[in-house]
């Protein structure tokens, strides 16, 4: 069953074409990793899916809902999609627990105690149960990442989007964050992951998509894309990053 579908999606910023006809389908429970050089449109792609960017043409379906341009559609799609930003954007004036439970209360209308319980559960899952009353400024980079993941998960999204969340971490810390994502993958969460960590991509991906100049150059199982790419450009890119 296809949970997320992009059909010929284009997105322009002025005269710059960030996305230039992207077509991609992600099945329920599938993990698709997107790789590609800087400026290839990876982040824009995620931003279009969670309706932070308006698409110029094409269609995006999330769990059967088409994202049109009305505000209601945007709010609907944000119910289905969880986003973890490259720069996280945790709420610095709230504790870890409040970061995770706020949207549950005001958006999902869960009672305070229920939201708190769910938050604690999620924070335990990402290994931060002892940090519930800390403020983001008191956490390490890896811990912040995990709070951001818990915050997105708390809304029970059907699809999770990760935008280069390991780019600001030192190598030692990357492991703990990737562990959390790996666990989500095993639980059957549908995910779209943008990363520069080729090793990680290979580990969690069901399929890898190589993006360049706002187009999907090729997509396929990790071994095929990484070891035996069909396109010259993919080969060049991999030769540089590996």
């Amino acid at each position: 069953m296809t949970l997320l579908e992009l059909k010929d999606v284009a997105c322009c910023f002025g005269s710059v074409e960030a996305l230039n006809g992207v077509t991609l389908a992600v099945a329920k429970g599938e993990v698709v990793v997107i790789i590609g050089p800087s400026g290839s449109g990876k982040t824009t792609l995620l931003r279009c899916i969670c309706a932070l960017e308006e698409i110029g043409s094409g269609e995006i379906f999330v769990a059967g809902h088409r994202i049109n341009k009305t505000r209601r559609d945007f709010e609907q799609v944000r119910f289905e999609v969880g986003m973890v930003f490259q720069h996280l954007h945790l709420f610095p004036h709230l504790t870890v627990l409040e970061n995770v439970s706020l949207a549950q209360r005001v958006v999902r209308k869960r009672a305070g105690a229920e939201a708190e319980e769910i938050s604690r559960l999620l924070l335990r899952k990402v290994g931060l149960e002892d940090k519930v009353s800390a403020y983001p400024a008191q956490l390490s980079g890896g811990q912040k990442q995990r709070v951001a993941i818990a915050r997105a998960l708390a809304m029970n999204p059907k699809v999770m989007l990760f935008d280069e969340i390991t780019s600001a971490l030192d190598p030692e810390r990357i492991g703990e964050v990737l562990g959390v994502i790996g666990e989500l993958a095993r639980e059957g969460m549908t995910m779209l992951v943008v990363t520069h960590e080729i090793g990680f991509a290979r580990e969690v991906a069901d399929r890898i998509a190589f993006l360049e100049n706002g187009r999907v150059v090729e997509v396929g199982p990790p071994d095929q894309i990484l070891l035996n790419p069909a396109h010259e450009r993919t080969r060049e890119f991999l030769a540089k990053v590996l």
Partner: protein
Amino acid sequence: MHWLAEQFTIFRSVFIYLIQAVHWTIAISVLAYLLALVFGLVFGVARLSHRRAIRWCAGVYINVLRGVPLLVLIFFFYFGLGKFINLDRFVAGVLAVGICYGAYLAEIFRSGIEAIDYGQHEAAMSLGMTRFQTLRHIILPQSVRVVVPPAANEFIACLKDSSLVSIIGLRELTRAGREYANQHFLDFHTWLVVGAIYLAMTLTLTRFVRHLEKRVAVRGFGANRDFT
């Protein structure tokens, strides 16, 4: 010795006379400032609206009111509008000062909101929050930290500018001073005391603002100010 005692008596009687008018100064400043807070918040947020018409209206309010001398505004509200509706001196004074300071506060609130990283808006929206929820739960609580010191300083300015309302005959501190000085030919003593009373109030407020600054600064932020 005799001279000193005489001076003391004069200052004392001036002070006792003037202090009875202080409550008007305080009433004008406090009410005008409360009005200004409401206007400032509404127009400060409106200035950042995604609807152009709303942005434009807020811009007109802010730029017109900041560009006109407060004294002229006071005349306009009391004498100008007085041609059509009979406004009480006090009401006219509070309205003029409040609406004028609302424009200054709107700019302070606007910059306070803009000081918050746009990623905060996006994170809140990606969690499904509406614009209003984002403003209420995410942006404004963080802006407070940025906004409180300058906004509180505006109250001090507002208190001082309330003296302009004396021109339309409201017997607040400055007006009372003028009356007393004229009646008793004690200009030197009177204006010294008037100044001292204003100064006592503003200095107290300055200390209070500094205290407030410390309080809002600590909440939620460790030694480092990391916004990620």
